[in-house]
């Protein structure tokens, strides 16, 4: 891997971490809660469901709370934050010439394999993030910073799941 080139391309992780910490603090300070991502993505998914099968959404209690009847699942701060994340990521990538149609994958697998695993991992992540009531942003980062017990336990559960399986699927990511 040409790590030298990549090292100069991205921010030093400690600088990124300090900036992210300041942003996280500002979010708590200004609006009273931390950062979030999965909840907003979920609302977009529910909005699509509501377009296709609105009667079904009205009958399903959990999602009816977001999109039942006249409720618009997109009228929520999380959706705006997700829109901001997309724009901010795009802007950062554009400035550094990283907006390019491509697939990041380990050296031993094809893009097609990578897509299949990305899809499968996404399904698990989507289910798990709802079950845990938050993701790396909403639970681990935000809950971690305000010292929520549940968030800290969650964080170590994520690392346990990842590290527990990593060795068995090393072919996905590692060099031969």
């Amino acid at each position: 891997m040409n790590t030298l080139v990549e090292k100069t391309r991205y921010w030093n992780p400690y600088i990124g971490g300090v900036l992210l910490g300041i942003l996280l603090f500002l979010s708590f300070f200004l609006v009273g809660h931390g950062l979030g991502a999965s909840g907003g993505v979920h609302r977009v998914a529910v909005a699509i469901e509501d377009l296709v099968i609105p009667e079904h959404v009205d009958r399903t209690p959990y999602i009816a709370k977001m999109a039942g009847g006249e409720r618009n699942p997109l009228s929520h701060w999380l959706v705006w934050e997700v829109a901001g994340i997309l724009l901010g990521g795009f802007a950062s990538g554009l400035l550094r010439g990283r907006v390019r149609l491509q697939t990041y994958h380990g050296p031993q697998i094809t893009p097609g394999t990578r897509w299949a695993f990305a899809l499968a991992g996404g399904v698990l992540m989507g289910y798990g993030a709802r079950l845990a009531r938050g993701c790396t942003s909403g639970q681990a980062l935000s809950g971690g910073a305000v010292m929520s017990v549940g968030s800290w336990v969650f964080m170590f559960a994520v690392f346990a799941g990842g590290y527990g399986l990593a060795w068995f699927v090393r072919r996905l990511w590692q060099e031969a």
Partner: protein
Amino acid sequence: MAPFDIAGLFGETGAYLVYLAIGFCFGFILESSGFGDSRILAAQFYFRRLNVLKVMFTAIVVAMLLIFWSTALGLLDYNGIWVKPTYLWPGIAGGIIMGVGFILGGYCPGTSLVSAATLKIDGMFFLLGFFIGAIFFGETVEYIQRFWHSGYLGEFTLPELLGVETGVVVFLVACLALGMFLFFEWLRRVVYGVRK
């Protein structure tokens, strides 16, 4: 005193623009830190690159310190900020499922957004999968209501758990972060040699 009722101050649209701005900075920082690249994120789990650990724990410690200090100075009302209530068992189960999803899929929800925004196809597939998984949860949560609400402890924080002052926990978490940085750096050298 902070936090502020921004919807009351700026109206609904104004509040949404504040969230858009916060999200913009969030996405910008994630992408600039290399988190739009699944290979960098996955490398954390092979001790090869420590960007995830360093960015995450630095951010947690910095935010925690700033919240602690601004509360101590009377600038921030700690009771006004949202602490996620703890549901222990679904949190652990969801966390493990997400850890598995992370190593298979290469992203977490926020990072898949910046990946897809920079036109990475694996990020887009991940996001599509996330939609499917989240919708599946919404359709089936009725069958697991008891489990989904199990281990409820309310707004339960580490200082309450340990029975010590908040400042002590802040100090301990900062030490934990520092200890992990040193330990993982050492581990990386053991596994991969001095080559960066």
